[in-house]
């Protein structure tokens, strides 16, 4: 009688542990992925497209020696939300014969007005206070304390990339 009772208890214990183990394992297999999904935005990067270099076009879209104005558009992706074609600003792009590039901000280093290219005088002209810059962005005359802002560029697969930062 005593023996069978002891056996009964250990059997009961075994079944209890076994069923809790199996049940616990199965439950963990369901709970872990659900928790993993719930904390996903915490653990992983969800915003893409904030890289430094922004594509502005193919090299042959730019005539040699003539500044061309380009809008800088960024595209950002936040999870499933796509922000495409956000205009951040504009730049003047000058391509040279050896395919080297100069990229200048269109904002005047004086007080930030938009600089134009004067094709007849071959100079950059600021309409606000008559600032004048040459094709390399150097100040020729006017109140500007410095030369035009320029940006770092690189060419990859015939595509021009600009490390655009807002300067004004």
């Amino acid at each position: 009688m005593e023996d069978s009772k002891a056996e009964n208890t250990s059997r009961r214990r075994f079944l209890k542990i076994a069923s809790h183990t199996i049940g616990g394992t199965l439950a963990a297999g369901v709970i872990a992925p659900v928790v993993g999904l719930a904390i996903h935005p915490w653990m992983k990067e969800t915003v893409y497209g904030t890289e430094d270099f922004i594509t502005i076009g193919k090299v042959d879209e730019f005539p040699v020696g003539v500044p061309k104005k380009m809008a800088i558009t960024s595209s950002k992706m936040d999870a499933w939300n796509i922000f495409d074609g956000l205009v951040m600003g504009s730049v003047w792009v000058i391509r040279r014969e050896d395919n080297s590039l100069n990229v200048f901000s269109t904002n005047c280093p004086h007080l930030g007005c938009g600089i134009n290219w004067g094709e007849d005088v071959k100079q950059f002209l600021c309409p606000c206070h008559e600032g004048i810059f040459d094709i390399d962005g150097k100040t020729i005359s006017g109140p500007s304390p410095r030369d035009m802002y320029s940006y770092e560029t690189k060419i990859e697969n015939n595509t021009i990339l600009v490390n655009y930062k807002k300067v004004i």
Partner: protein
Amino acid sequence: MRKWIEDRTGLSKLVKVMLDEPVHGGAKWSYVFGSGLVFLFILQAVTGIVMTAFYSPSSTSAWGSVYYLQHKTSFGWFVRGLHHFGSSAMMILALVHMFQVFIFGAYKNHVN
């Protein structure tokens, strides 16, 4: 800590009542469908709430948000799968449970 939680919520008492409930006429495998339904219901609710956090109910981004959930998140495909198949399983279990209650006459007053 454990005692504090117990004092506030009576959680382990609830678990005891749920798990150690005496079954009239002895436990049988044919009685699992009710508990199965409770489990599935909780599963549907929890997976549904978690997935809501990744859903955007708009005509422009609904598809994109589901795509993101399915392909870009950790275990999103798995949780969505659980929810998907869980709903079908719930229908089946509900029917089986109904028949079981009906055939066993479980809705009648107990004598034993």
